[in-house]
Structure formats: structure tokens, C-alpha cells
């Protein structure tokens, strides 16, 4: 292991690091928005849209991100839609993450106890009030662990962006290895860089899960 090589590569890795963070953040926020919308459509059984969401979730969850990206990057230009690699990456990540987040929210809503729903009905709440005051507050709290796992998952999935040449962390490492053949050093930096993002985040998310759980259910 040559520390001089590592030192020289750090400015490039920093750029990749920042891009990975940026793409992850946009992708996660977009996924949460798409996922929440999809799960609400499913919860309220909105006609037509409900079918579309079901099809979307099936396609998205049952195809690899790699293939989704190839499709966006190579097939779209063929039908006249040209988008940048970064935008492809973000759209692909949201397309994938949206369905995972949707399943997370839906799992939370379904996890609300039947007794709670009945006691809400017993005080005369209508369907919307039941959702607003009983199902959603408890369902969100129940879905936090799944959402947290999805967040970590999506950050790791950004490494696949390297196949469409987005210069994020993995792509930076691959480029450097291609240029200088110092694979030990660059892969080492790559692992450390992901660990710097993911380990603290996963600790924060675990803490958050406990807080939300206690705040809602008291245990």
C-alpha cells in the first residue's frame, strides 16, 4: 500500500464523493415522494391509478437497476429522447427506489392493528379521518425501519451508475485503476469512502427508528 498514491488521488475521490452524495440525496428524496404517492393511491384504492401503480411496482422491483439504466441510457435516445447520464441515473434511481419506498409505506399502513382501526371507527371517524388520525401516524412510524433500509440500499445502488459513466465514487475508482493500475490503493479508498457515508448514516437511522417508535407507541 502506497500512501503517496492515495494522497494524490484524494482530490478526485472528493469530487466523486460529493457527486455520490448529491445523486443519492436527490434519488432518495424523489423515491420517498414517488413511494408515498404510490402508497397513498394504493391505500385509498384510487381507480385506474391503482392499477398503474401496481404495474409500476412489479416492473420496478423485478428488474435490476443495471438494466433500467441501460434502457434509459441507450433505448431512449433511439426513440428520440436524449437525456444526460446524470439525469438518467437520477431517474433510474427514483424509478427503482419509488417502488421500494412504496412497499415500505404500504407495509407500515398494513401493520396498523385492526383494533386501532375498529376503535377509530367506533368513535365515528370516516375513512379519511381514520387515515389522517389513526392509520398514517402509526403507519409512518411502523414504516421507518423499512424506509431506513431503503435509504442505505439506494446509496449503495449509486455505484452501478459507473456503467453509464457518471463520475461518482465507483466510477472514479475504476477510472483511476484503468489509468494507473494501482488497484489496491484505489479500492481501499473506495471502500473507506462508502463506509464514511454509510456507517454514520446507519447509526443515525437506527437512533431515529427508536425515537419514532417510542414517540408513537411508547416502547
Amino acid at each position, binding site marked *: 500500500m502506497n500512501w503517496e498514491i492515495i494522497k494524490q488521488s484524494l482530490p478526485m475521490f472528493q469530487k466523486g464523493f460529493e457527486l455520490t452524495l448529491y445523486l443519492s440525496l436527490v434519488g432518495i428524496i424523489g423515491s420517498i415522494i414517488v413511494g408515498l404517492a404510490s402508497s397513498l393511491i394504493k391505500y385509498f384504492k384510487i381507480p385506474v391509478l391503482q392499477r398503474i401503480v401496481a404495474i409500476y411496482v412489479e416492473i420496478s422491483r423485478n428488474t435490476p437497476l443495471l438494466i433500467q439504466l441501460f434502457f434509459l441510457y441507450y433505448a431512449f435516445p433511439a426513440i428520440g429522447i436524449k437525456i444526460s447520464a446524470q439525469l438518467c441515473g437520477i431517474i433510474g434511481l427514483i424509478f427503482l427506489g419509488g417502488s421500494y419506498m412504496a412497499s415500505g409505506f404500504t407495509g407500515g399502513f398494513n401493520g396498523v392493528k385492526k383494533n386501532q382501526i*375498529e*376503535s377509530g*371507527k367506533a*368513535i*365515528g*371517524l370516516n375513512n379519511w379521518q381514520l387515515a389522517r388520525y389513526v392509520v398514517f401516524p*402509526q403507519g409512518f412510524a411502523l414504516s421507518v425501519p423499512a424506509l431506513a433500509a431503503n435509504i442505505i440500499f439506494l446509496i449503495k445502488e449509486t455505484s452501478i451508475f459507473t456503467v453509464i459513466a457518471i463520475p461518482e465514487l465507483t466510477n472514479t475508482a475504476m477510472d483511476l485503476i484503468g489509468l494507473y493500475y494501482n488497484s489496491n490503493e484505489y479500492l481501499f479508498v473506495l471502500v473507506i469512502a462508502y463506509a464514511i457515508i454509510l456507517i454514520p448514516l446507519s447509526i443515525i437511522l437506527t437512533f431515529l427508528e427508536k425515537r419514532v417508535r417510542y414517540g*408513537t*407507541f411508547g416502547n
Partner: protein
Amino acid sequence: MTEVLKVEHLDKSYQKQPVLHDINFSIAKGEVVTLLGPSGSGKSTLIRTLNGLEKYQSGTITFNGKKVVPNDKNWQTLRQKIGMVFQSYDLFPNLTVMDNIILGPTKVQKRAKEEVIAQARALLKKVDLLDYEDSYPRQLSGGQKQRIAIVRALALHPEFMLFDEVTASLDPEMVRGVLNIIRDLADQDDMTMIIVTHEMDFAKQVADRVLFLQDGKILEDTPGNQFFDHPQTTRAKEFLESMNF
């Protein structure tokens, strides 16, 4: 005596399994009826059918002289008049005691918050829990939770109360407090009530009438004192004997 509730030829089955069969009875205003019977006799199913938590296949339920058309919308309106308390309390864990109580009155009945809070405090005082309005359900004992659940139901000014084994999961010491509240409702407020219970002494004290169920059928519909002293059917007699030891 005005008839509050009338049930005629009510039938219910899960898949092909019949659970309620040809149920007929009516309840007058201010009357307290207890549903007794062995486990699986259909007591809970019957009481849950009366506020639309269970669907039924045929028969009619008439409330205040009006036949209920059983759809979600109608039941949702009716439930404001039919209070129900469950075995597992089912307070909302994410809301304080006060917010649990005022949710229905303010959101469903759109009553003024100040008025509802004042009334909620009066009710909390009655059940000796005035100091707990800012507590969360997790900070309360089972008996306290159940008293709050009763207050939550009463805050909607129901005309009718359903109690589904409300003391069944309480510590013995907690049972008395909850039962006293129900008895006061019967004695002082003349509340019309249907009570499913396994507390025979309590049922004896409070019941104007007993419906004895077995296999989804009403075997007896007798005045309270008469049922406990001279049950008409041998099955009811066996049941009462099994409760004493």
C-alpha cells in the same frame, strides 16, 4: 317505554359456518342488557354487529324506529350515537389522553374545542383521572386506560353503549373501578347498554335483562334476577353452575 334498538331475524355466517342464527330482541330506553354465554357462543360477534363492525347476511337492525340500511356511510353516522368499548382498550398510542377523548367530538361532530375539553374534564373527574389529561396511554395502567376508553366513548354523547368484555384483560384489582363506572352509568345516567361480560356478580347487579347465547342462538331472554335465580333452560343452569365454585 320507547324502543331504542330492535333486532329481527339476524343471521350471520363466516363462509358457510353460521355464527349468529335468527337473533331477535329489542331494548327499551334506559335498559341494561347483559349478553351471557360460553366462549364462542357469538356474544362478541353480536355486539360488534350492532355498530357495524361485523356484516350480517340477513335480518334487520332498527335504531330509534329507523331501519338501518347497512352500508359504510350509514354506520359511520350511527356510530356517533352508539358508543363502544373494547376488551383491549385501544386508545390511540400517539395521542394524549385529552386528544384521544376530544378527537371524535371535535373532528366528527365538529363541536367547539373549548366546550368539548370542559366536558372531557368533567368526565375525567368522574372517573378519577383528571390529573392524567396530558399523559400518554403508555403511562397508564390497564384499568386507567379502560376508564379513559369509556370516557372517550361517552364524550360523543351516545344514546347507547356497547361494552365488549371490558374487564377481561384487567388485573382483578382494576376490575372494580371499571365496573363501578358502568354501574353508575346505569343507575345515575339511565344509559341504555348492552354488556358482554364474564363477571357474573356484576351482571347480576346491573342487568335488567339477560340474553343467554349458545351456538349463535338466543336460548333465553329473561329478566335479570329471574335468570340468575331460576334459569329456564338446563344449558343456562349448567353455565351458571360452572361459574360458581
